[in-house]
């Protein structure tokens, strides 16, 4: 078990190194003056000269590369000349909104998909199954930016349900501001985080401490459409997997013997078959975090949700290369970390894997 985890961790470190290297190579091979690239859209000559000196762009590529690796190792993703800010600070600032959205989307997906998949898998070739199959087919085939717009059109415009337009911060009136510590310190990592009003935290504390549901309502109103938009592909995928997993499991001998023993069917379904089905689903969720991140870029753009994805698009429009690098690396590293965690979970649920 421990050996497995260590091996997995080493592999992960190798991948992270690879990701950083790819982003470095991309910058190195891209046409044009690297200083111009680092300085961002339309920076003037003096800035470009300062970038050249500060980033050591006159030095050999190898030493630039080692510098870059070294600084990322201590949590320093460089400096955005365009935004005049540490890239790390920019990334940190944008993380909570993206996580909030991604978690909400995953919750939406699980809440809808698992029961749907179970129903579909246990009632094969009945109308419910056809419905679920059709839904999941549409779900994995619909571009989510279009889905987002159609949700706005149908719910927002035709049925008049308000949706957020300025992201999470627009409704937090400031009464529940979550103060982060002024720096998150692990010795190595030391960066200012500022403060951010988290809709969900504010909403929950309003319910708990003020017995007020209005904040929660506001939060729900703001997160529902983006979460649905981002979660639909996931929902469809998990429905499919749950369905086929249930079909597989229900065909196994232990189900027949349990039924013979007279265990209630509902207990067999939810306690045993579903549990076994969940194991591959967790793996897929891990592997699909990348899809979620890609989807978040789009969803955040559609709903102007102030997360990493929206910031990435802004950085691309400004040609702000350090920020592009920082966000892409961060997303990729997040993907690796989540997959290691998923593997560990998987390993815990099903110890045979470590042998294979």
């Amino acid at each position, binding site marked *: 078990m421990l050996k497995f985890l260590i091996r997995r961790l080493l*592999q992960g470190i*190798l*991948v*992270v190194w*690879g*990701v950083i*290297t*790819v*982003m470095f190579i*991309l*910058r190195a*091979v*891209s*046409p044009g003056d690297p200083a111009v690239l680092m300085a961002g859209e339309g920076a003037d000559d003096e800035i470009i000269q300062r970038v050249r000196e500060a980033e050591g762009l006159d030095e050999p590529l190898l030493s630039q590369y080692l510098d870059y690796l070294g600084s990322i190792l201590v949590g320093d993703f460089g400096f955005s000349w365009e935004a005049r800010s540490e890239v790390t600070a920019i990334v940190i600032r944008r993380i909570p909104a993206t996580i909030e959205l991604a978690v909400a989307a995953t919750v939406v997906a699980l809440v809808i998909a698992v029961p749907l998949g179970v129903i579909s898998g246990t009632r094969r070739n009945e109308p419910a199954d056809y419905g679920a199959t059709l839904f999941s*087919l*549409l779900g*994995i*085939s*619909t*571009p989510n*930016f*279009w889905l987002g*717009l*159609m949700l*706005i*059109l149908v719910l927002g*415009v035709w049925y008049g349900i308000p949706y957020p337009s300025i992201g999470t911060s627009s409704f937090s009136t400031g009464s529940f501001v979550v103060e982060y510590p002024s720096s998150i310190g692990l010795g190595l990592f030391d960066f200012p985080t500022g403060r951010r009003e988290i809709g969900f935290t504010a909403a929950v504390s309003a319910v708990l401490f003020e017995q007020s549901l209005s904040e929660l309502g506001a939060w729900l109103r703001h997160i529902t459409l983006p979460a649905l938009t981002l979660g639909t592909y996931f929902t469809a*995928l998990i429905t*499919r*997997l749950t369905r086929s997993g249930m079909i597989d499991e229900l065909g196994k001998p232990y189900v027949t013997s349990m039924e013979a023993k007279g265990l209630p069917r509902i207990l067999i379904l939810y306690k045993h078959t579903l549990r076994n089905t969940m194991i591959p689903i967790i*793996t*897929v969720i891990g*592997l*699909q975090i*990348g*899809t979620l*991140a*890609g*989807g978040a*870029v*789009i969803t955040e*753009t559609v709903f102007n949700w102030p997360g990493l994805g929206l910031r*990435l*698009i802004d950085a*691309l429009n400004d*040609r702000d*290369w350090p920020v*592009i*690098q920082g966000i*892409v690396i961060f*997303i*990729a*590293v997040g*993907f*690796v970390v989540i997959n290691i965690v998923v593997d560990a979970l998987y390993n815990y649920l099903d110890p045979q894997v470590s042998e294979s």
Partner: protein
Amino acid sequence: MISDRVRSNLRQSFSESLLPKIGLGILVVIVVMTLFAPLLATHDPTDTGHFDPETGSEYPPLGHSYETEVAVDGEFTEVTIESNSTHVLGTNTVGQDVYSRLIYGARVSVIVGLSATLLALLIGVPIGLLAGYYGGRVDDGLMRVADTMLAFPALVLALALIGVFGERPVGIPDPIVMAGFAEGMPATIPIPGTVTIVGALVIWVWFARVARGEAMSLRNAEYVKAARSFGTSHAQILLKHILPNSMTPIIVLATIQVAVIILLEASLAYLGFSGTTLSWGYEIERGQDYLRRRPWVSIFPGIGIMLAVISVNLLGDWFRDALDPNVDQSERGA
């Protein structure tokens, strides 16, 4: 390349289930749209200015009308715009025919989807076969590269690549127009060149992985060993024995990846990073600001993307069910 057994499996599952038939049906429609776009379109898709002559407003789809306000000499006047029989699905914000752009959009999606997948095949399959066949360091190296590439979400990597290399459209000539069969249609249509290459760079690694797996299992197969004992060269073994026998899972994967690329192209065009405007994704973005009054501008191209992706997914499911190769759901790139 494709054995009789495979063929009969395909036939059997096709006749048993409705879904592959639907998939094939939609695909045929899309292929016809792609091939005969200049004949099916009613207007030059790039031709602007088809507005209601009195108010300068867009036409709604046939059978619909809508109300809007226009400034006439600085005064706002409420007007009702009726549809126009030559513009079946109405016109968009610059007065282009929505129906004709829907038809041509299929062409762009299909060309990008196929050529990016083909390019990815050409990159990924040889690398994967070599790594799987020879094993050792080459193989280790490939696996690390593959792991690294897979750590990037496809869209995010594509955006980063485009950020570096810019957006370049490529003009593709239209043989039907060149031969003089379609008057007034564009002689070339712009295809997002960078997006095609970037798409291939993003998905090639999936092909490399599958090809590697196949080559690894086949290199110890009896007939391969036999061929080697007869002194057949490695190159010939790879070409004559390993490649043909690896094709089935690769074809299944390729089918799914076409859908991935179609979605990727649409997403990039939607975000404004494809460099072309004749694209379903761009059309959706174009209509975004006009959603309340002119929803048709965004609705139809979205249906186009959805149908194209559904058909490819259905075919992919059909192939997978019939052939049962080791391509599972988790190997979808997008």
